[in-house]
């Protein structure tokens, strides 16, 4: 993630934003993934931006590889299970602010951080 407001070398983690494509695709947990239909726009190298409450873009970046995460809190006992595809990015921005994520064909999604983390589920 290429942040506009910080040096990743001095703040390697920053705040953590997880972008989730709720695609319910059968995958092995933890395997690399891109969003399945209708979230094909969510994939590694897809450009995204984060704007602050005033509408100023504070972060621009490209999504990293996604990682398959369990869609349900239930173990069906098979290798391939219903999953969502989650992308984890880091941002050097103020933790207290409200932000808007813009990614592909998804409607802009507002979010805020809590305990240094935030999750945005695409729609």
């Amino acid at each position, binding site marked *: 993630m290429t942040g506009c407001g910080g040096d990743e070398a001095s703040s390697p983690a920053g705040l953590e934003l997880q972008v989730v494509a709720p695609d319910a*695709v059968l995958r092995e947990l933890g395997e*690399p*993934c*891109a969003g*399945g*239909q209708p979230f094909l726009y969510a*994939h*590694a*190298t897809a450009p995204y931006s984060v704007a602050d409450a005033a509408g100023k873009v504070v972060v621009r970046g490209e999504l990293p590889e996604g990682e398959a995460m369990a869609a349900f809190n239930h173990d069906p006992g098979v290798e391939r299970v219903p999953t969502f595809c989650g992308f984890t990015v880091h941002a050097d921005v103020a933790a207290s602010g409200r932000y808007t994520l813009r990614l592909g064909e998804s409607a802009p999604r507002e979010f805020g951080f809590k305990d240094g983390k935030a999750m945005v589920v695409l729609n």
Partner: protein
Amino acid sequence: MLGTTALLVAGCGGAGYDGGRDSLPGPVPDDVTFAAVESTAVAPPFSLKLLDGSSLDVTTLWRDRPVVVFFLASWCSRCATQQETFKPIIERYGDAVGFVGVAGSDKAEALKTWVADHEVSYPVGIDPDLATWRRYAVRTPPAVAVVAPGGKLMRGWPGGATAEELEAALAEVVRD
């Protein structure tokens, strides 16, 4: 001598990996036969506009040989791994097995670069409205399907196929 020349031309990249009509397989070798398959599922027929602008009715490919249908995208990192598993299989089976790439949610220029970079030696086109992806129940790339000679759907692998899985499916049908 002719074989050596053909290999040299095909191995130079560029025009050899353009995903167009020139990458269609030749006639099925005379010494290859195919076993009947038990599947009753009919593979959804489809046509594809290839990367060189020509059109391909894919049913003409599986009329007389099995065909591996690869659902891919240039932005799909796992598709590169899948392509690597194809290469020895393509070399082993030659014109006895057809391959075709069906890209979705992609742009022609990016796909052309991907095809050249990954030495894709078979025809590739874009499924512009994902209609073919839907007919094969493809949600995300990579995905692979094998169609038997005559058009019966043999196997499908959402998430991609291992070399062993693909070899096993082709060994069921190719007699050489």
